[in-house]
């Protein structure tokens, strides 16, 4: 691929010596970034490297402690995003920044609304959005509620927001994290469109293949500082990764099957409705998890995985179907009884479902095991026992924190996750429901959690693994199901399937192409 740019092209954005400190952490240290006009510039770095922080600085969300920002060679200071917007910078955040109860139109125009005689001029706004949508092939309907949109559409709304403000420089913070490969391709199509129109794009990602596919230039950040730039045409993914991590990558170890014949979880024809009597969000799902088996569920987010997990945990009623733990029908059991019966749960959103952030670690140890020793004695809580066991978990699972009395909020995401995994393992469940167990966790902790899961599997635990990380699914699962619109549409052999193939099933692009894996 021939770059249309040359070294002497003017710099759209230049960041010099940016340092940003948060209480107790230096998120960015003396960072340099040079982005040429009209290029797609990728920033890569592992979790917590400081990419988002840097971009938030550029977008005026906070001020750098040191360093300066130059736009087209001229220094700029931003007191708020409004200033950055005025200077032609737009940002699509890692986590979507959309008001669900607003329409696409309202979300897009918010903050720079066209008005006529004091009134919000919806007609003009609608026209503008339609125009943008058409010229960049975003396919938006201004009057639909954001709530009803899928992930890909939401992202396009975010992009429309930025374009609507006439941004000439776009920041995309991990735009592909939530997309399946096909959607990623669409996004890249959009990016190409943007580039053709002369826009500058700053693109953040961990996914090195993607980066090499789409970027014109790459800046690598490690531990808050720039460790180098790379040319995507000449650098291999492996080289990039080592630059990023600063060490050799962990490799998924070869595995031998530990699957036994005894089923721990059997679901037959399970359906779950959105609201009582409403449409099914989980549709006629039948699957079995055996002892020593990891059953992976792949799927684009919002296709019923979360509801499936909720149904197994008893957080949602079944509309139909049969749910068995071992030999027992547990459909009528309460969540507590299910947990007592031997189901462990690593929830998707640890802050929402897995932890009491303001409580000390030992109380978090009790959470979910309120009825079982060592946490309780009769109707009373066993503080001593809980503390001691927490200390054990911290030791055994490498949870780094001052002690069991530390508040959970003080732990980094990875350490929180290790505590949760340790807690669930400590109860020796027969079945573990692990939803996105390594989401938002950096490489080191991720490898640790993978090891834990593998060990547990080897000891005969059945694991249902829901994940958006296709590599994780492929490397851990013994059986892989694909979920689409609430139904299991394919069962694949993780040893033979490629991420692209998987993505095809996840989007429904290759329906009917059922390659049944080893059972």
């Amino acid at each position: 691929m021939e770059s249309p740019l040359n070294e002497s092209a003017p710099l759209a954005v230049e960041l010099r010596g940016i340092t940003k400190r948060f209480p107790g952490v230096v998120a960015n240290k003396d960072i340099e970034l040079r982005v040429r006009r009209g290029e797609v510039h990728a920033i890569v770095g592992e979790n917590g490297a400081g990419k988002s922080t840097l971009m938030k600085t550029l977008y005026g969300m906070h001020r750098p402690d040191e360093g300066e920002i130059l736009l087209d060679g001229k220094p700029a200071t931003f007191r708020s995003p409004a200033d950055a917007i005025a200077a032609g910078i737009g940002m699509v955040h890692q986590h979507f920044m959309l008001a669900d109860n607003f329409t696409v139109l309202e979300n897009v125009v918010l903050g720079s609304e066209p008005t006529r005689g004091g009134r919000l001029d919806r007609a003009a706004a609608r026209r503008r959005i339609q125009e943008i949508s058409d010229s960049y092939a975003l396919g938006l309907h201004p009057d639909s509620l954001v709530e009803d949109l899928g992930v890909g559409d939401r992202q396009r709304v975010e992009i429309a927001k930025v374009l609507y403000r006439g941004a000439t420089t776009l920041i995309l913070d991990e735009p592909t994290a939530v997309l399946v490969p096909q959607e990623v391709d669409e996004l890249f199509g959009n990016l190409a469109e943007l580039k053709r129109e002369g826009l500058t794009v700053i693109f953040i990602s961990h996914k090195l293949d993607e980066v090499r596919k789409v970027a014109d230039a790459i800046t690598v950040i490690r531990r808050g500082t720039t460790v180098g730039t790379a040319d995507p045409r000449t650098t291999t993914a492996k080289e990039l990764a080592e630059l990023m991590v600063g060490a050799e990558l962990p490799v998924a170890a070869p595995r031998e099957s530990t699957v036994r014949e005894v089923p721990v979880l059997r679901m037959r024809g399970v359906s779950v409705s959105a609201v009582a009597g409403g449409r099914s969000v989980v549709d006629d799902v039948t699957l079995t998890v055996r002892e020593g088996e990891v059953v992976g569920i792949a799927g684009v987010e919002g296709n019923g995985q979360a509801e499936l997990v909720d149904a197994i945990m008893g957080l949602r009623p079944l509309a139909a179907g049969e749910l068995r733990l071992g030999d027992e029908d547990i459909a009528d059991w309460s969540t507590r009884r299910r947990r007592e019966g031997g189901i462990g749960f690593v929830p998707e959103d640890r802050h929402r479902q897995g932890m009491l952030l303001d409580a000390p670690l030992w109380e978090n140890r009790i959470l979910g095991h309120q009825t079982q020793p060592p946490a309780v004695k009769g109707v009373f809580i066993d503080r001593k026992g809980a503390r001691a066991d927490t200390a054990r978990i911290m030791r055994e699972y490498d949870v780094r924190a001052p002690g069991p009395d530390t508040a959970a909020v003080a732990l980094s995401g990875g350490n929180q996750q290790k505590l949760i995994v340790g807690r669930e393992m400590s109860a020796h469940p027969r079945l573990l429901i692990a939803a996105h167990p390594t989401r938002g966790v950096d490489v080191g902790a991720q490898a640790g959690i993978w090891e834990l899961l593998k060990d547990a599997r080897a000891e005969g635990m059945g694991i249902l693994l829901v994940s958006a990380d296709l590599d994780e699914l492929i490397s851990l699962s013994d059986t892989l199901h694909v979920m689409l619109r609430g139904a299991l549409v394919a069962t694949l052999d993780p040893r033979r399937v490629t991420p692209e193939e998987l993505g095809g099933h996840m989007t429904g692009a290759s329906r009917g192409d059922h390659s049944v894996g080893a059972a």
Partner: protein
Amino acid sequence: MSTATAVPTSAGRGPVTELFLGGGRARRVTWLLVGLLVLFSAVRVISGQQALTSSSTFGAALLLAVPLLLVALGGLFAERAGVVNIGLEGMMILGTWGAGWAGYQWGWVGALAGGALFGALGGLVHAVATVTFGVDHVVSGVAINILAAGVVRFLSELLYTDNAAGGGVTQSPPLSSSPPRLSLPVLSSGPDLLGDLESRHWFLVSDLAGLLRGVSNEVGVLTVLAVLMVPAAYLVLWRTAFGLRLRSCGENPAAADSLGVPVYRLKYIAVVISGMLAGLGGVFLVFIANIYREGQTNGRGFIGLAALIFGNWRPGGLAAGAGLFGFADALQLRSRTAVVALLLLVAVILVGVAIWQATRRRYVQAVIAVAFGAAALAGFLTIDQLPPGIVSFTPHLTTLLVLSLASQRLRPPKADGLVYRRGEH
């Protein structure tokens, strides 16, 4: 309702056609109102309780509803911007005091300004606590309620104890002027055609006449303006850029912030407006009596909050809530026997509910509804006057009943009550 008419009608149909034949909410609301009127009329005829739909009752309902309406609108502004406002009662109390104090010196115009200002000050305190200091909204609201009661008592003590104009620790001197009132010529005054129709006690016609006359006879000009605040609030919140920004603070403040919307400032503005409206609610209470009197609000701030939730955080809905409460209150203050007639109404509605539930195969609910309906009917047939203690809570019971019969589709602003701190989203 007014909000419904504010929605631009689809091309080709006039607004009236739209109301009856148009799509969606406008039509449903219109038919609901028509249905209610028919029901009320029927119950009036059967029970012989003319007070049920007399212009006098409707006039009183309007008078009682307007303060609630304003308070609820105050709540709307705050909560749409994401700040729960339990302190409405306190702000209303401040409003009544401000109105009394300014009103005895500068007349009703002064009262308006004074009440609004005092209410706004209460709002400001709430904003400082919740927005700047991040105090839990409910907690701050409760504290404001306590504080307001002390402040007004103290101010009265300070300013009225030896005041030549009158007043004392519990009341202000009377306002030096009261706001103008008007009646519709011919229809409600002079020949008073509506009054004539009403007094004939015809089915439906007299009831409608009573309703119309009630809201057009001797009505304060400001009352009309206050009612117009409902569509005005709708227009401001849903049709202007300011309103969009304000609501975005209640739905997703982080998103708003990231687009350069000044979230903190907007929340401040919204909460101050909220206090101001609550204060104005107090002013209208003062207007009714022409005097500030301690304890005048009598929990109406809380009722306003209930009306807001009742109305699903929408102007039209909260107006309905305030109207319902005002009507029930007026009725119980007017006639203990007319309240009994409400039992018949309840019975009819419950039977309707039962049928509806039965068609949806929810037999348990249907049976419960029938049982309660039968009880209400039995009550209507056997009781001719309820004891005073029981009558006094008619409006509250009504609100509770309506709320529990239909409250599951409520949708508060998503970030309502959440403390927003920049960067901590």
